[in-house]
């Protein structure tokens, strides 16, 4: 698969898992894309990152170390974190 195809597939998975975490109705007027911000657009709370981490673990197993990856981030990194950054990270784990 090409890099773009992998990212498209990962984005689809991430959108599904994020939707599970924040709830369908929260998202009815937000289209999640690569530029969507976890903090300002999705307003994810600290504990919702725990929930997201469990869902990613459930889907990707040990291939993706989300906990280790997000655990390295400072507050300002998380405030600026976009869906696309997570997608690129997951795609790099698949490569």
């Amino acid at each position, binding site marked *: 698969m090409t890099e773009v195809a992998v990212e498209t597939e990962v984005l689809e998975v991430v959108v599904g898992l994020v939707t599970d975490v924040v709830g369908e*109705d929260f998202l009815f007027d937000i289209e999640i894309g690569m530029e969507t911000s976890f903090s300002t657009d*999705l307003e994810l*709370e*600290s*504990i919702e990152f725990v929930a997201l*981490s469990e869902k990613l673990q459930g889907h990707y197993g040990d291939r993706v170390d989300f906990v280790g990856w997000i655990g390295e981030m*400072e507050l300002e990194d998380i405030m600026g974190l976009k869906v696309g950054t997570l997608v690129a990270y997951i795609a790099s784990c698949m490569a």
Partner: protein
Amino acid sequence: MAAFLFVVPPLTGHVNPTVALGRELERRGHRVAWAGYRAQIGSLLPEGAEILPMGGEIPDEILEAAAAKAQGLRGMAALEFLWRDFLVPLALAMVPGVEAAVEKFGPDCLVVDQQAFAGGIVARRQGLPWATSATTSAELVDPFAALPKVGEWVRDQLRSMQVAAGVDPERAAEGDLRFSEQLVLAYTTEELVGPALGLPAGSGPVAMVGPSLATPDDAAARHGDGAFPWEWLESRQPKILVSLGTVNGPVGARFYSAVVEAVAGTAVRAVLVAPPELVGEVPENVLVRSFVPQLGVLERVDAVVCHGGHNTVCESLAQGLPLVVAPIRDDQPIIAEQVVRSGAGIRVRFGRVNAGELRDAIGAVLGDPAFVAGAGRVQRSFRAAGGAPGAADRLETLLG
């Protein structure tokens, strides 16, 4: 006989649990006083309570930050804002006043609200025993488990704040000012929060004593309930209380209108606590009041819809009432999860919930006995936990 000084922030929910505890300590012959901003806490305390006011009014920028905080900020930006623009400046502003209060009152022990860091700072500087009064249980299960560097950032704020207020830097680096090294009082139970996990190194023992609730008489005496139409709650129809605590403004208005639409045309009677001008026209099965004598109303309803404020949730569960929780920010998502996990209720989204979902959720907690059973389990755990007398017992162990 000893002297206990409560140190409280200018936040309603944080003062309430100290009222019943203060009364219990007085009943045992101790002296009790409250240090805080008189304009914000005076009306929350019983008549005759001794207040040791901060010198001057609360600084405008802190008041503005508190107001902005109430406007529904969520996410990581809300967390940074809470610490940088509210908690830290508030602590530094209160230190001189708390210092003066200690000098005047001569307490043997401070009881410090978990968001009134000035109390811990002064206790550390003067070597006085102090207990944390954890108004909410959210900090008892590390909310930053997945984000360790964010947890570290919070601890950095606490350290630099103490140093700025004159605490020895080595002492400031010890423990975690959110948790007294001697005692942490938590007004909840394991049945609701699960075991306290992930507490920072150096935290004192956590005593989960259950809610420290004012009696309905106390509450009525404070606010007067003469105007409340109690006969409205004598109906045999299912009844609910809907309250968003002190959250108002446009975000609240949207939620209220969804609630009104959800119960319109149903057999449910709803007492809606909201400014009537925010709600507008309502059908006859909805009663809108800007204030209600909440404890009395809770004795007469069957379920509660709220935003997940710790006090309202615990007051409801103390009556064995199932809940629909629509958390907005701060600790509320955590409290909402606790309610869901304990089987006592349902969580809905605050910002985007629609009338249909609310109608389903209200119908479920009223109709499915599993939720009443879950709420009943928490209610029994509260009764067994000791309450204000249990908290007073623990505080007395800190006296020399």
